[in-house]
């Protein structure tokens, strides 16, 4: 995964709850077999007035001027602030890829869906959970005047300004393991493979205790299931 230590940037408020991953990256873009090319289609149906197509030139498309990401004052935003249950719905990791490729390094919300939260961490996009009331205050401020925040993962702290450790700050929680992985940009597959012997031992025991697991491989499974009423 990519490393995340500390990031300062402009906040764009997306004042909406239950932002689902279909909204973040609509289905027609999931036909791509690449990890890239999703940034220009982030929030496609909200950002543009027409229906997007994978691989098109987006520079000529008409923008929805009321969508915050399109407002000139938020053009350089790299921190997305949104409502509860952010990233709900589909497990598509394309949502995290699209946010990163657009230029976001951090999403702040009162809560995230479980799968999306993992997808973010696995890509070095930091999901920060702040209390509902804190997010509401930040939402108002970001809508009123340009708000720049410093997100310090080492200190588990969000503060106003560029440098961190300012009087205006909010602590957030993230478990030690994920924090450590992000700070070091760990290859978590390699980390699991450090337990190779333990996995092999477990697998041998599991197959002894549950010998039916792979007893009939799919290749030899009959094409037809017995009919049932």
């Amino acid at each position, binding site marked *: 995964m990519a490393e995340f230590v500390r990031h300062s940037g402009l906040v764009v408020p997306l004042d909406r709850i239950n932002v*689902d991953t*279909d909204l973040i990256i609509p289905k027609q873009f999931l036909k791509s077999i690449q990890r890239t090319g999703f940034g220009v289609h982030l929030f496609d149906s909200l950002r543009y007035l027409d229906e997007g197509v994978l691989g098109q030139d987006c520079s000529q498309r008409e923008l929805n001027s009321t969508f915050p990401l399109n407002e000139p004052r938020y053009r350089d935003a790299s921190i997305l602030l949104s409502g509860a*249950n952010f990233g709900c719905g589909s497990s598509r990791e394309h949502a995290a890829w699209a946010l990163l490729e657009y230029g976001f390094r951090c999403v702040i919300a009162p809560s995230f*869906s479980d*799968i999306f939260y993992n997808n973010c961490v696995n890509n070095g996009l930091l999901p920060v959970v702040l209390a509902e009331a804190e997010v509401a205050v930040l939402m108002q401020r970001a809508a009123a005047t340009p708000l720049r925040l410093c997100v310090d993962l080492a200190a588990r702290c969000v503060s106003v300004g560029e440098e961190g450790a300012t009087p205006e700050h909010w602590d957030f929680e993230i478990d030690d393991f994920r924090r450590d992985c992000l700070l070091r940009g760990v290859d978590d*597959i390699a980390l699991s493979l450090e337990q190779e012997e333990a996995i092999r031992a477990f697998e041998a025991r599991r197959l002894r205790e549950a010998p039916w697991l*792979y007893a009939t491989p799919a290749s030899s*499974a009959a094409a037809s299931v017995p009919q049932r009423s």
Partner: protein
Amino acid sequence: MAKQTLYDKLWAAHLVHERDDNVALIYIDRHLLHEVTSPQAFAGLRHAGRKPWQPAACLAMVDHAIPTESAQRGSGTAGIRDELSRIQVKALDDNCADFGIEQFALDDPRQGIVHVVGPELGAVLPGMTIVCGDSHTSTHGALGALAFGIGTSEVEHVLATQCLLQKKMGNMRVCFEGELSAGVSSKDMALALIGHGGSSLGVGCAVEFVGETVRSLSVEGRMTLCNMAVEAGARCGLVAVDQCTLDYVRGRPMAPRAALWPQAEHAWRELHSDADAVYDSELVMDAGAIAPQVSWGTAPDMVAAVDAVVPDPAREADPARRAQLEQALQYMGLEPDMALTDIPLDTVFIGSCTNARIEDLRSAAAVLRGRRKHPSLRRALVVPGSGQVRRQAESEGLDQIFLAAGMEWREAGCSMCLGMNDDYLSPGERCASTSNRNFEGRQGFGGRTHLLSPAMAAAATIHGRIADVRELL
């Protein structure tokens, strides 16, 4: 020893290693793969020079982006007209061939929606850990298995290590008591639960469904309930193993046979929560009071009984929720206080991993028998969940009921649930759908979705608007 929940037992049985910080390595017994969320994982595997740890645990099939018209299904991958979909399907064909993974390709009689095929084939079994790069993997929890959706990085992780790194989730218990009324199904139970508890009710939890109503459901009905657990925010749903589960599994092509069956049955009979197990949270639902449900908004928790009216945002006290309601009604083109049964429709879709099993099709056909699609409807699709479901439906004459009603009878796939193929809604098009998500644009750019049960979709087909199936029974 402390009393354990079903989730506690499944977790403990798959624990490979636990670190001091409670992050655990858990073993994955079954890895289901499909064409949309796997190509980047295989690319990562290739890039790192890694191989699948246990190819026998993997089973792949195409379902999300494939055509469901018979005309495009006669000549395998090459017959897919859409170039991007053809490339994506071909990528799965090639990746499975390269890495020695069993795949049900487009023309395989066993092909279908991964969450329909897994259980029907016995490829997923009680007591297993099951993952797939798809949030509706929660479906398989109906068999007393620990099943949850994962992202593509995690798909790569499981391919390479057969394990996932994670912390244990919380335990939530949802109890349904009482007898379901006629015309009410497990889909209505799920929607009523989400309407009551909200879209983030189960975040961070494994939700176990218990109670006499759940026990009285068939395994397929339990699958619908667990499938929708993710719409309540829970990564997985669970139902304990009982005789009904064992009867369902026995004799399936990949289920244990001969001497292995009694051994498996013995182990599976332990797959229930202990009597005094403690949960982090509990909820009780009166199933007898549940009416057929219809969603009216753009999140699954925006749902009501069919005889209700569209809510008025002005009556909502919470400003965030009020803004969401206003946004939803605007997108859906609905007015406050209009009766749900006054909502006219353009399209009906019966299908998806939520409701495209044989019992779902029987339930819809029972309502449609001898009746016809309302002339105001543009189209009505019936998309079986698998080739097997399609064949069984045809052997029971269900296809003839749908065709006689003026509906289309398609080949298996995810189809209009997410509209990645040619089956999608046009801007403003309004659809009664047996699928699982009514998000903006889910079924097509600007499309409007009303979630309901197969029987309710049948009633909607007959009336050309949202209708109460109880009046047709």
